[in-house]
């Protein structure tokens, strides 16, 4: 009797696994097609529209660029210069020194001739206390504002301080160490001013800067990462940004605008409560709350994505830091889904509640668990000698071939939108990486996702690894490198 029940259970599990994988693949295929339509539409319009009109217009809406900085003393000056040189007629740069323990603030004060001012700070979103606010005495940096605050142990807290102090109706949230394309503001503001429906947030593709040539905070040459982990992450980013997010953008069901680069409607962001500093995935959580807010006030809205690479960031190159990052992300996802569980299949939230949120639950959150059980089941049938090797191999090839094919199409879409890489060899390298990614990289993602879920359940705290900015380091002079090593010794002490 028990054996019979077990056999039924196994049969059910096998059918479920196959059906789950097939539905997942089908949904990916739909996303590929939708993203192609959206990208084509974008490129058609881009081919003849001149964004320079915004540059000379007195009617361009103002934008505040918010960049939190924590112990960024080595690169802060170049990065701030890079932000200040963005092409846009009306913007300010707000740097939040989030209680840095290095010389970040001192360097800012010295290099930009900062003066402490008596600023009327309006704390619309509660944050850790602001210690001092600085403006530059040099008219060349009239649009720079530096906020020195007590460390809030999260980027969310620092970003909220930036939102509080921002003077313009839109704010761009980024990381101070990100390399941003000079036309980012022009491109990201466009959806806000060209749609008849209110746009509450826009995002763009983020790429990996690990092997890129960067000089004084400016991108000189884009290159495919040399190391394995960043290389696989590059593929993952291309897939996520060009396939996933473009498709969701077409459906107006986008749930995530990355913390690395996103332009937001300030009024809506504040009304929604700003970033949640307790969240492990504050960027996704903010978009979720902004969407909920818009549904609650019954106002139509859009969250848009553009298929251009406008931001380059350095990603973890070591397993430890990578693991911590992914564990945190998966924990953030689990936290967000749990926190906003009322949305799932709630028709009040439209396509967001009926499609997007359930998709994230069943195919983003659940997938690593299903995969992990699948692997365990494979081991079980091998050990017990129940495996049908022919079927097992066919099923593995089934999943593998599909996943490689999808990645190749993501690389192709990337080539269609904007040829990032100068040589064919670099694209070839990406294609080769796509062949081995499901074997070497994907299992790591699954492991760290499961770890994140376990941490969610147990409430275990996460410790960030020290992410060495190797990509930027290479570009620094020997003198600076020497300075850094001295500095890290001091910090250790």
């Amino acid at each position, binding site marked *: 009797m028990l054996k019979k029940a077990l056999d039924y259970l196994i049969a059910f599990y096998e059918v479920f696994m196959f059906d789950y994988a097939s539905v997942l693949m089908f949904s990916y295929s739909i996303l590929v097609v939708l993203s192609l339509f959206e990208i084509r539409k974008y490129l058609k319009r881009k081919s*003849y529209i001149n964004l320079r009109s915004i540059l000379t217009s007195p009617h361009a809406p103002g934008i505040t660029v918010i960049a939190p900085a924590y112990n960024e003393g080595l690169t802060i000056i170049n990065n701030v210069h890079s932000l200040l040189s963005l092409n846009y007629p009306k913007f300010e740069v707000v740097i939040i020194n989030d209680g840095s323990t290095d010389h970040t603030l001192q360097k800012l004060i010295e290099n930009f001739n900062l003066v402490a001012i008596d600023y009327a700070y309006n704390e619309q979103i509660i944050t850790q206390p602001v210690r001092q606010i600085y403006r530059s005495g040099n008219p060349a940096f009239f649009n720079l504002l530096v906020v020195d605050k007590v460390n809030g142990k999260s980027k969310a807290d620092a970003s909220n301080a930036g939102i509080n102090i921002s003077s313009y109706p839109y704010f761009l949230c980024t990381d101070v160490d990100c390399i941003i394309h000079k036309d980012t503001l022009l491109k990201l503001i466009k959806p806000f001013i060209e749609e008849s429906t209110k746009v509450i947030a826009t995002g763009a593709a983020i790429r990996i800067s690990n092997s890129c040539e960067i000089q004084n905070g400016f991108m000189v040459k884009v290159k495919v990462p040399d190391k394995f982990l960043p290389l696989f992450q590059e593929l993952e980013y291309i897939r996520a940004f060009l396939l996933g997010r473009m498709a969701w953008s077409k459906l107006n069901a986008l749930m995530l605008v990355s913390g690395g680069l996103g332009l937001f409607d300030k009024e809506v962001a504040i009304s929604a409560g700003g970033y949640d500093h307790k969240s492990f995935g504050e960027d996704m959580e903010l978009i979720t709350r902004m969407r909920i807010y818009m549904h609650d006030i019954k106002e139509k809205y859009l969250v848009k994505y553009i298929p251009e690479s406008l931001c380059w960031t350095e990603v973890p190159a070591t397993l430890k830091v990578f693991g911590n990052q992914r564990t945190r992300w998966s924990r953030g996802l689990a936290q967000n889904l749990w926190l906003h569980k009322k949305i799932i299949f709630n028709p009040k939230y439209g396509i967001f509640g009926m499609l997007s949120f359930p998709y994230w639950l069943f195919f983003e959150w659940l997938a690593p668990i299903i995969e992990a059980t699948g692997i365990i089941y494979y081991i079980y049938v091998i050990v017990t000698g129940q495996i049908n090797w022919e079927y097992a191999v066919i099923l593995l090839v089934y999943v593998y071939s599909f996943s*490689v094919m999808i990645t190749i199409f993501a690389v192709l879409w990337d080539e269609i939108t904007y040829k990032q890489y100068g040589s064919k060899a670099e694209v070839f390298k990406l294609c080769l990486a796509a062949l081995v990614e499901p074997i070497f990289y994907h299992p790591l993602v699954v492991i760290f996702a499961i770890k994140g879920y376990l941490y969610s359940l147990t409430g275990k705290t996460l410790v960030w690894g020290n992410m060495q900015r190797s990509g930027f380091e290479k570009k620094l002079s020997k003198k600076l490198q020497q300075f850094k090593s001295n500095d890290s010794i001091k910090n250790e002490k």
Partner: protein
Amino acid sequence: MNKQNYSSVKSFYEWFNQYPLFIEIAIVIILLSVVLFIIGNVSLLFKRIFDAYHDVRIKKAKELVTAELTADLMMDDSLTDHDFDKYAIRIRELMLKNRLFKQVLIDQVIFYHRNFTDSTSRILQKLFNQLNLADSALKKLKRGAWELRAKGLKEIQEMMTGESNYVQLLNPLLNDKNNDLRIEAQAAYIRLHKENPFKFLAHTTEELLEWHQILLCEIITNTPNLEVPEFRIYLRSKNESVCSFCIKLIEYYQQLDAIPDLINLLDHPSQKIRAAAVSLLGKLDAEQAERLMIAKFPMEDLKIQLKILESVGEIGSGENLTFLQTQFLESEEFTLVKTAGCALVNYPFFDKEELIQEVNQLDDSPLARETILNHCTNVLIRN
């Protein structure tokens, strides 16, 4: 199909049929994925090769066209009719090479026309007509793809400025559902219509989006000798976006005659229009609007209240110091206090010290009004 092929297909079918359905599905997906994988890779390769070839062709065409245009036409102001005809013939030969050359030529002529004035611009326009490039642009208007029609409109508006006989072609496109096509038609209308370039505003039913307004403002302010009407006549438009657009143009052209009509807009049902009207009344120093704005202040929402405070400060008549001080001292809304403070800073008869004394006499207010006042008076702070 020969026997051997038939038997191999048959044996594949038999092999395939031996499996259960889920394995059959998996095999089909594997085959499909492999085929798509190959197609994807081949497309990547061909795209690179094609793009490189296309870039070389464009570069070559551009070099040839630019050499002809710059050396023979633009460098020579004293071009005789005979010389011009010779050059036109040579350029026509270039144009007839292929479609790519023709489009590069059109783009280059437009580019130089936009960037040069006087004789060079006239010669380029003459060349455009002589080569019948206007016909080519008009043909584009009849094409199905919106982007080609928009391109045709761009060419017409750039090269046929003031040619009113083309205007009727634009009428059907002025209210097109496609935003980008519509804006190009409106831009072309402004540049081609000699007598009344803004007539279309009276019949515009579609929304003039913010982006369109920016583009149209740029075209309007960069088109020489444009007949500018009194934009106040459009302030009563039922199309809110037209009203909003005209408010911007009234500001640009400083049309003070529009003040009474702007005052009427203070009762407009749209909050956005009311806010824009209040703001512009401030910028136009409309003292006659002050009393009405202040009367409406208590009934308005926060956004308009802030605009009223800004405008009263900007007008600076000196008659409403008490109103601003009252808002500064009594309001419990941070943004209102700050805006009132900033409005007070340059207001006639304003005494900062006296106000600080009054602030100090206030009971425990959660708002740091003195800091707000210091904020407003600090020259390093602009907002």
